[in-house]
């Protein structure tokens, strides 16, 4: 086993060597530490919500506090965890390596994006600690601009600032993928993880400016009483919803596309088989990114938007399901005739495929306009998007983190414990969120501090599941941290996987490659066969 003498981890010591680094790998670690911290904060808020909902009466927290809890849960999880999660950590670390480059195109901008992220986090934490915000993460007007007397401004500013971090990351990825690919790394030899991030980056740079403008308009109306959204000032509250969802629906794809990229890598590595239908997976990512920009109106089916607008948004929402279906079928076909090993990353990937299928198909319920009227703003919606964001995005994130952990840290984690953790997460997740589909169809509205007693049984299951899910998240935190100090040293390729990242030492040297690689075939080519081409 080779132990590289000089790696990115020991190339420079002390706090300054980290805080002033321009190395994409170190910046990825900075992001990893900070998003983990915010995940814990967001998880705490979720725990408070679930504890309160254990009983029908609003007895643990006051209504004000409860409303702040679910608002802060949403704001922190969406803007400070889910959006940056995979791109800023795994993407940051592996995109340059996967395309055969020494770093991202703009290393300083990469570091800047982390500082902007931290600043956004500080504003959001200030908002939480100084009393909280109670508008819901959706900041709907005119409540957010005219009625709420909580710390809307600092939270909105946090969201505004976080957006710039996201834009800079997206910009960096797009330029890197276009300009810095190694010799022979053609577009159709790129790992699918890179394709997924290319699609994600398009959304980041095209969509994020809109949320920034929207949040700024909310601030302008709240502080300066400019009539934009509040009808009492001559504004239109539904305009806000259009602007908000123009970003925030595509933002869901910012969260899920990178996870899909992770799953594509894991499925190939653990089936020891190249992907089935490479170009279909690659182009379906782009299709999701493009079509995803045209579906925002399905959040407004009951807002009083025109009937015909509703029909068009319903139609396009059904279309965006097709590329997702294509991916699921291709992943399944990839496992066929593979040499499958069910290590923890593969367990997460398989969990992802199952939960994403349910999450995606329940999205069709919400796209069907006549059915959405009933389930809109109920726990059915809450269950659906948690299947996508927790069952999908976080399972993908954890799978990727395990898959690449040996490469990032140079250490092997405890595999049996990791499998236990993956199963606990899967069980806890389903116990938490499946009952919410039933409660939702029964009519339980979301964001309710107190609720009629007939919904209690579902909430008891949910809260019990949430505590199991919490255990499922703490277990990896323990054995992964332990592995940093006591884990066995990892070889360059602990999984027997293929790809540029597995050809360099673990952990990689600062420059990634001693000689710039020359690529002659696609990734994940296990059997000695022809080029991984189109179809």
């Amino acid at each position, binding site marked *: 086993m080779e132990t590289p003498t000089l790696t990115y981890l020991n190339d420079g010591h002390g706090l300054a060597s980290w805080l002033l680094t321009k190395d994409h790998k170190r910046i990825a670690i900075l992001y990893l530490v900070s998003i983990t911290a915010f995940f814990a904060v967001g998880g705490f808020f979720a725990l408070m919500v679930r504890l309160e909902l254990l009983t029908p009466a609003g007895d643990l927290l006051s209504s004000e506090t409860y*409303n702040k809890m679910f608002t802060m849960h949403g704001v922190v999880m969406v803007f400070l965890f889910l959006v940056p999660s995979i791109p800023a950590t795994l993407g940051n670390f592996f995109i340059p390596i996967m395309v055969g480059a020494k770093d991202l195109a703009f290393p300083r901008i990469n570091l800047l994006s982390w500082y902007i992220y931290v600043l956004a986090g500080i504003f959001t934490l200030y908002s939480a600690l100084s009393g909280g915000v109670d508008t819901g993460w959706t900041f*709907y007007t005119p409540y957010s601009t005219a009625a709420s007397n909580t710390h809307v401004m600092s939270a909105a500013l946090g969201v505004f600032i976080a957006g710039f971090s996201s834009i800079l990351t997206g910009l960096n990825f797009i330029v890197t993928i276009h300009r810095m690919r190694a010799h022979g790394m053609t577009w159709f030899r790129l790992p699918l993880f890179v394709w997924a991030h290319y699609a994600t980056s398009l959304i980041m740079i095209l969509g994020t400016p809109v949320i920034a403008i929207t949040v700024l308009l909310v601030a302008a109306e709240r502080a300066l009483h400019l009539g934009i959204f509040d009808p009492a000032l001559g504004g239109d509250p539904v305009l806000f919803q259009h602007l908000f969802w123009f970003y925030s629906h595509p933002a869901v794809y910012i969260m899920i596309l990178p996870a899909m990229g992770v799953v594509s890598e894991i499925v190939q590595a653990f089936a020891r088989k190249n992907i089935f239908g490479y170009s279909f997976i690659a182009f379906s990512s782009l299709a999701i990114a493009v079509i995803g920009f045209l579906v925002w109106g399905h959040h407004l089916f009951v807002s009083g938007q025109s*009937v015909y607008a509703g029909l068009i948004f319903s139609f396009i929402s*059904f279309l965006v399901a097709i590329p997702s279906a294509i991916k699921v079928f291709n992943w399944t*076909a990839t496992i066929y*005739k593979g*040499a499958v090993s069910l290590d923890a990353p593969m367990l997460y990937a398989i969990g992802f495929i199952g939960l994403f*299928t349910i999450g995606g198909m329940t999205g069709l319920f919400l796209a069907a306009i*006549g059915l959405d009227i009933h389930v809109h703003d109920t726990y059915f919606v809450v269950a659906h998007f948690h299947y996508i964001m927790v069952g999908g995005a976080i399972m993908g994130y954890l799978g990727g983190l395990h898959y690449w952990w040996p490469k990032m840290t140079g250490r092997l984690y405890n595999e049996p414990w990791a499998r236990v953790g993956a199963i606990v997460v899967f069980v806890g997740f389903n116990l938490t969120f499946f009952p919410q589909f039933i409660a939702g169809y029964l009519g339980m509205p979301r964001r309710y501090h107190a609720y009629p007693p007939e919904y209690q049984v579902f909430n008891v299951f949910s809260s019990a599941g949430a505590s199991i899910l919490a255990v499922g998240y703490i277990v990896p935190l323990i054995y992964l941290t332990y592995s940093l100090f006591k884990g066995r040293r990892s070889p360059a390729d602990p999984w027997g996987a293929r790809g540029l990242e597995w050809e360099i030492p673990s952990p990689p040297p600062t420059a990634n490659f001693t000689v710039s690689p020359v690529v002659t075939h696609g990734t994940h080519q296990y059997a000695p066969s022809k080029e991984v081409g189109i179809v």
Partner: protein
Amino acid sequence: MFTNLPFFPQQASVQAGQVDAIYFFMVAVTAFFSLLIATLVVVFAVKYRRRHDDDIGVAIHGSLPLELLWTFVPLVIAMVMFVWGALVFFDLYRSPANAMEIYVVGKQWMWKVQHMEGQREINQLHVPIGRPVKLIMGSEDVLHSYYIPAFRVKADVVPGRYNTMWFTAKKPGEYHLFCAEYCGTKHSGMIGSVIAMEPPDFQAWLSGGRAEDSPVAAGAKLFQDLVCHTCHMGDTQGRGPVLTGVFGKPVQLQGGGTVIADEAYIRESIVNPQAKVVAGYQPIMPTFQGLVTEEQLLQLIAYVRSLSQPGAPVPAGTPKQ
């Protein structure tokens, strides 16, 4: 605690069955594909499990026929769902012309209801079964959403405009009424009940109201109190347009264009009179924003509307010919 555990909501409106039919179809499709994928993944993972450490999979790069199959089969199923969902929506959206109209105003954190016959209620709604009921809804402050799960209907209540929804209750009983759009501190307290009654019972309940509390009568009184009648007179001599017979009709606007004189236009003309001035009149009307509540606006609208109905009363304050 968990006695009489419900897993499915009551079907208490004529529409509920239609919504549930598409729901069951989608549950079946979801169950089928979820089980299909789960089975395939598990079977493949077990059957093709790695037996030796250096095993590798078979190189298969794809199959165009399979790709086309799993593109077009989901597409066709999705289009069936789209069309079905749209048809159900059209039924939920288009209210029959003979629907009984009720005014609803949402405010933090209560629902106020005015029946045309004079009954008023808070956080309750009494309706007859077997007859279409249309709610015309406005908000005093922020967004709300009127939601009756047992009827499978919901519509946001948006300040500055009127949204409507309709249903035909089927089964007598008392059902949950929820605010479904987050509206601040006591959002989860903005709940109540919808009471569906046999028509004779409903008539008996309705007769408990006083005629002078009806929106039209209250609107007529407001029309006087706010001295609207000094400009909007029964003939063209007034400084404001004649209101008799205009409701529901197109109105010529200053600077060209027309607008249908519906609830939204009359509301706008009261709170923001300069927005769309009727052709031939000066923009001299002051705004009544802040002077009239949402409920009073609905009363004024009810009154203006009554001037266009057969046997309409002559507007108050009109000089006798």
